[in-house]
């Protein structure tokens, strides 16, 4: 009775994954066995067809959907990080009793959640981010929606013609505006009840 080559050996042979003695033994058997040669050819053609399988282009809106979810996540993580840092700072003060610290922290949490996002001072930072060639037309940031109009990101609901105060970027940028950082563009939003416009420099600036 003939002992044929195993399926695993044939498959690994196609991937050049057989050690030299095993490979030579297999080639010797193939020379004399039409049945194993036929099976090997079948496997080879399966591999060739799989390799030629066309890679489909993802739907065009996918990048935007991912970006929106990631921006929301960045927002959540940023706010969480700020709270953690603040609470840590409070508790390492030796003069502060734990109960007092807790009360202050709770008050701070309430404060940040109710006003945090809207009351951030825009201070700005140096930005080294390339401009994205396919910028989307709308973004959700910190639960606020921005639409791109004539090269400016305008918060939804703002009159495009409303008078604005243009702010210079200072030292530090609020985390909720970070997703705008790479745009090299202007963002118009409500800040402390005022319509302001922030100019984010381009990467080369």
């Amino acid at each position, binding site marked *: 009775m003939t002992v044929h080559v195993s*399926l*695993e050996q*044939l*498959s*690994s042979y196609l*991937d050049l*994954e057989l050690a030299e003695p095993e490979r030579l033994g297999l080639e010797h058997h193939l020379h004399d066995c039409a049945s194993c040669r036929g*099976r090997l050819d*079948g*496997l080879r*053609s*399966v*591999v060739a*067809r*799989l*390799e*030629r*399988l*066309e*890679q*489909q*282009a*993802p*739907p065009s809106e*996918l*990048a*935007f*959907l*991912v*970006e929106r*979810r*990631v921006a929301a*996540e*960045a927002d959540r993580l940023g706010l969480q990080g700020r709270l953690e840092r603040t609470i840590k700072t409070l508790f390492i003060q030796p003069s502060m009793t734990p109960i007092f610290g807790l009360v202050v922290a709770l008050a701070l949490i309430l404060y940040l959640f109710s006003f945090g996002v809207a009351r951030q001072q825009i201070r700005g930072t140096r930005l*080294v*981010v*390339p401009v*994205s*060639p*396919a910028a*989307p037309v709308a973004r959700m940031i910190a639960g606020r929606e921005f639409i791109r109009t004539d090269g400016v990101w305008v918060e939804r609901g703002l009159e495009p013609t409303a008078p604005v105060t243009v702010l210079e970027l200072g030292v530090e940028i609020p985390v909720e505006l*970070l*997703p705008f*950082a*790479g745009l090299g563009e202007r963002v118009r939003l409500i800040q402390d009840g005022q319509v302001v416009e922030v100019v984010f420099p381009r990467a080369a600036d």
Partner: protein
Amino acid sequence: MSTAPVVMPSPATEIDLIERHRIGDPSAFEEIYSQHEKMVFNLALRMTRSPEDAAELTQEVFLRVYRHLERFRGSSTLKTWVFRIALNCCRSRFRRRRLTFREPSPGDDDALERIADPRADPERDALNSGLGERLDAALRRVPLAFREAVVLRDVHGFSYDEIGEILRIRIGTVRSRIARGRERLRCMLESEQ
């Protein structure tokens, strides 16, 4: 977010990318996204039934990538790491849909050989007449554990070692799953002719 042509980066570039992400540069994630978007989407497409499912899965994958990117230590390539996350997402999706997928133990591979994928739909597949579509339809009928290995190897070109790392299985198991997946396809495609 850009979808520039894909150029696979060297390990040094990858570590640099992670570092840029750590210090808050949002373009680092955008680069990682554009390098892997198409591959992840196509992997998801071969593991699910529809482009809609694949698009949703791709979103989940990149959200997880974003969450855990800081923990990437460079012990594997970024591509391997992203694919591991992607396959885990595919599996938890199957679990959520009660499609009885679990990580098979070595003895299970024989049992898998005998069962068909419960999600496969031969009637619908018969309508797909194109060569690539027929292959895709056949792929869907290959048990998931074998399909994962074959797709990683023959569609995405991973080495046996990398596949072992992505699926957390031994090389012997990698070899066996690839062989059985290919054999299932061979039988299906030859019986069609």
